[in-house]
């Protein structure tokens, strides 16, 4: 059994995870519209909560704008405050 064991002298190269980027900066979006629900849905999870920057990759400036837009959309009943299976 010991013969079948594979040993490496150097560590195998693992594929690096793709670097996250701020899509607002990359595509030059300056304004986050609270009426565009389909777009805002990319930044919320299935329960209607906002995704953290750690996951969405937004820069702080635009994360703030997205969060304002989501909150406005919730006030106007475009997005739910709490839900299940949103997507």
């Amino acid at each position, binding site marked *: 059994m010991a013969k079948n064991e594979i040993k490496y002298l150097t560590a195998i190269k693992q594929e690096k995870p793709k670097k996250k980027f701020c899509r607002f900066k990359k595509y030059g979006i300056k*304004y986050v519209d609270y009426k565009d629900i389909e777009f805002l849905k990319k930044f919320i999870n299935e329960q209607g909560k906002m995704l953290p920057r750690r996951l969405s990759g937004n820069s702080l400036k635009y994360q703030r704008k997205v969060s304002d837009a989501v909150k406005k959309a919730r006030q106007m009943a475009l997005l739910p405050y709490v839900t299940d299976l949103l997507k």
Partner: protein
Amino acid sequence: MNNYELMVIFTPVLSEEDFKAAQKKYADFIVENGGTTGHSNPWGLKSLAYPIEKKTTGIYWVLEYEAPSDLNEKMKIQILRDEQVMRHMITRLDKYAVEYNYKKRTGGFHTTEKTPA
């Protein structure tokens, strides 16, 4: 003078004429008080994400306008007195927002196309 956007949710029991009359009422109110109305976009009947006043649908209306800063307080009083209005929101538009709205109207771009998930 600032750019604003007004979004109103009317009760779903409103008839077509009542809806038009209500739109006209607020548009006239803005003009009377020294503002100018821009693009008006009646979305019509739409289901709500959660019930408001025990109703599951509402009639949405979005209006862009330019107005002096003291107009909004006056209009708010009118809107809150109005029984037909379930909810309203006034948003101040910055220069990017005005540009965005204009482009969206003229079909310049779609945000959903621009940003692949």
